[in-house]
């Protein structure tokens, strides 16, 4: 078996050195009733060729995004990833390294994390960022818990423009805590009143920008109200490339910024793994969950990097830790960081302009579809559309798929009990779309509507 170096003769020699006659003897502590004497009735080992064939067969059953005009977003975005990103993260010293607890043999990973933290802080407009969380949804849940620790209050207001999976993840995380969530209804037009709900019991307001239905808000007034009431403003960014064109949450007064980093460096991978970004103000850093890389000196006085402020973390503080998180998304953070390095400040801005221009063009082209209305007043690269009162967007999406067009996500997939959302479709455009893709979407929509 190609992954197992021991030979039968090795095994015999080693058993002799141990003083055991058989490897089964080494399992003597397992209660006899629980010992399996034979391999399970499952398939036996296979060579690379057979396994690759099995995966090629499964992959062939899917319609991959590159084979269709593709306009799906809603929290996962298809972007072009420079070829160098994947080549670099496949380097075994990155790919097969452990968590950098031994800094002398992990300066590469640690410097990457320090650079990553610096990049995340820069684009979000915050003081400090951690070395990543599992994904945007879990990072949002952690942000709520952190805001409650800081304010010593236990009421969170969750915008109806927050991604429904994120809402569910936050609500699940709060389920057995003292914290209650005030969840607003879905908000496709961006009309919800968050300001009027903030009071002296509010720990935080959580808002997504751009919102789940696409709208962008000026968060300045909300931040001011939150701060007046002693509450924190938590801003979630599902599409981080938007930060190249939209005022950063930090500049608008956010106290905690969380984001899903998948757009940069990582493919869609059917939704996982993601990359949770987490940034805050310096004064809150000791309440932050997750790993942090920091600068220091070695015994020779040379600059180097270590994991730091770990007294917040579970391996030191156990049940009193800021979070139970141990693993982060190291390799995804590396991919994100390489992509952002290759874009640079100039390229990051240009990528964002390009995405917005694509969405503007899509809106223009969609004017040819009778009865279709773009819902939000503002948007970045994604917006919800209303297809007409009697139209079921889920059926439209299925019909589009049958024509080989991956034409957005029906809102009803997330909100099955909101009939008024049945005609709502969420469409995203990125730099990967061609004019022809858009024309094909428009033509297909005209046919099925």
């Amino acid at each position: 078996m190609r992954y197992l170096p021991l030979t039968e003769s090795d095994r015999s020699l080693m058993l002799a050195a141990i003083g055991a006659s058989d490897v089964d003897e080494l399992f003597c502590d397992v209660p006899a009733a629980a010992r399996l004497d034979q391999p399970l009735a499952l398939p036996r080992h296979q060579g690379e060729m057979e396994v690759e064939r099995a995966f090629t067969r499964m992959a062939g059953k899917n319609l991959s995004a590159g084979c269709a005009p593709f306009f799906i977003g809603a929290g996962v975005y298809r972007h072009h990833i420079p070829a160098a990103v994947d080549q670099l993260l496949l380097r075994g010293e990155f790919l097969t390294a452990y968590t950098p607890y031994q800094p002398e043999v992990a300066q590469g990973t640690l410097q990457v994390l320090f650079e990553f933290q610096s990049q995340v802080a820069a684009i979000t407009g915050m003081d400090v960022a951690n070395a990543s969380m599992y994904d945007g949804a879990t990072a949002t849940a952690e942000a709520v818990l952190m805001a409650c620790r800081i304010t010593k209050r236990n009421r969170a207001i969750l915008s109806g423009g927050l991604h429904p999976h994120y809402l569910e993840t936050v609500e699940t995380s709060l389920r057995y805590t003292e914290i209650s969530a005030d969840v607003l209804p879905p908000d496709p037009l961006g009309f919800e009143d968050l300001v009027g709900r903030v009071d002296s019991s509010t720990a935080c307001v959580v808002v997504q920008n751009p919102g789940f239905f696409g709208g962008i808000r000026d968060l300045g007034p909300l931040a001011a109200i939150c701060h007046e009431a002693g509450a924190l403003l938590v801003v979630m960014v599902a599409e981080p490339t938007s930060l190249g064109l939209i005022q950063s949450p930090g500049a608008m007064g956010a106290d905690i910024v969380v984001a899903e980093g998948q757009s940069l460096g990582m493919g869609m991978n059917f939704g996982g793994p993601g990359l949770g970004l987490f940034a805050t103000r310096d004064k809150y850093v000791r309440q932050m969950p997750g790993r942090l890389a920091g600068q220091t000196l070695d015994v020779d006085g040379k600059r180097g990097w270590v994991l730091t402020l770990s007294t917040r973390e579970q391996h030191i503080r156990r049940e009193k830790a800021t979070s139970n998180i141990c693993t982060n998304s190291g390799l995804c953070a590396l991919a994100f960081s390489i992509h952002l390095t290759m874009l640079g400040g100039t390229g990051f801005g240009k990528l964002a302009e390009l995405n917005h221009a694509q969405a503007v063009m899509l809106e223009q082209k969609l004017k040819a579809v009778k009865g279709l209305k773009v819902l939000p007043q503002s948007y970045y690269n994604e917006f919800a559309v209303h297809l007409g009162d009697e139209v079921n967007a889920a059926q439209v999406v299925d019909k589009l798929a049958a024509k080989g067009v991956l034409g957005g996500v029906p809102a009803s997939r997330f909100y099955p009990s909101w009939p008024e959302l049945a005609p709502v479709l969420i469409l995203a455009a990125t730099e990967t779309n061609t004019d022809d893709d858009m024309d094909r979407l428009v033509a297909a929509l005209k046919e099925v509507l």
Partner: protein
Amino acid sequence: MTETNTISGNRGLQVEEPLIFEMGCEGRSGVDLPDPAPVDLDRLGGVPRRGKTGLPDLSEPQAVRHYTRLSQKNYGIDTGFYPLGSCTMKHNPRLSEKVARLPGLADLHPLQPQQTVQGALEVIHTLAHWLKELTGMPAVAMSPAAGAHGEWCGLMAIRAAHEDKGEGYRRRILVPESAHGTNPASAAMCGYSVESIPAKENGRVDLDALKAKLGPDVAALMLTNPNTCGLFESEIIAIAQAVHGVGAYFYCDGANFNAIVGRVKIADLGIDTMHINLHKTFSTPHGGGGPGSGPTVLSAALAPYAPVPYVIESAGGLELVEGARAGTKPFGRVKGFHGQFGVFVRALAYILSMGSDGLRQASSDAVLNANYLLACLKDVVSASFDGPCMHEALFDDRFLKESGITTLDFAKALIDEGYHPMTMYFPLVVHGALLIEPTESESKETLDQFIAVVRGLAARARTGEAEGFKAAPRLTPRRRLDETLAARTPVLRWKP
């Protein structure tokens, strides 16, 4: 050792590398993007970005060299032996990387219509089938993103089950003192209080002490098995009976599943739920700290409370269930979308490659390798417990007594010898712990070389060469780093 002072500060292949922020220069780019069509910025909600992000501009060759040089300052499994206990640093097959990049699997959106992703659902369903068969458990929640996330998922299912039975008053969780820190931290996140239970002299849970702590207010026992001392909990069936006897559930931390895959079905041990670290047992890359994946198996009693989403077989093919169905009471959703799919692909590639026979052979070899190290080292390095051990061997610092050398010094000396250190100071139940897990990936030759090095270092320690140990490592890009300075004056980002 001879020190060579070079003009550049570089030492041959060890090249000093600045931060990207110290290399950037406006006007470069590593990506050529088409020029966007000119658009007004009046659709941006009145908040277009003002001011620059401050990100440095680099070209592609600069970026490639930067990350290549940084990679060379890292140790990985590809570089050498990683005897890191409780972490299962086994070989990461490259076939797994290859198939994970097939466009039909990588270039898929999680919200595509389900009929366009039947192959992706098949990956999840097939992996779930293997995990259920290997553990003997009837259900598995696939979405937890890592081990600790799986712990939390399992405890949430337990809490939901108790609440559903009107037993929400159960708020105590019992955890052995040797447990990973994530165990008590996960319990706290479910609103539980945590109590420690002691071990016996043989490193196993003290069943009488456990029984004394059990009562009608206990929600669950969290136990790692094999435990963090590398020992199988030989009384585990009696433990499970005692836990169930008071109406509590039995959570198993599956971090050490690699020792028993194909040799023990955890259902036969009376376990109600266990997370499985795909990035340990099923060989997906650790990636310098993630991404992980922590599918969590559930007994029939807990299965109705499994979080969404999950895959079922239906008339039209495979179906992804994203909300509550009749007869189920999901406790919620643990993350966005459908779990760590990219990790699932890699784990399934490994599982199909190994097969049921290979997985059983792997756990046998992992245990054999650990016992071989124990047998070949225990006369010079103080073993904490008599063998046999399972997949990892625990030593402590008695062999360093009066040498002036600490476990940390000893581990750092290993670095100069070309090895990643073993796990140090964990578990907390022995003094100055050194926990060694060789995994099945290592050849006898590698183990013999490592044994010779450890024996040599132990001999040096005995002859009082403390200074050499204190100065280690000397051959790394950076020597011992000042962690106190880093924590006292945190510098957590680059500033101009």
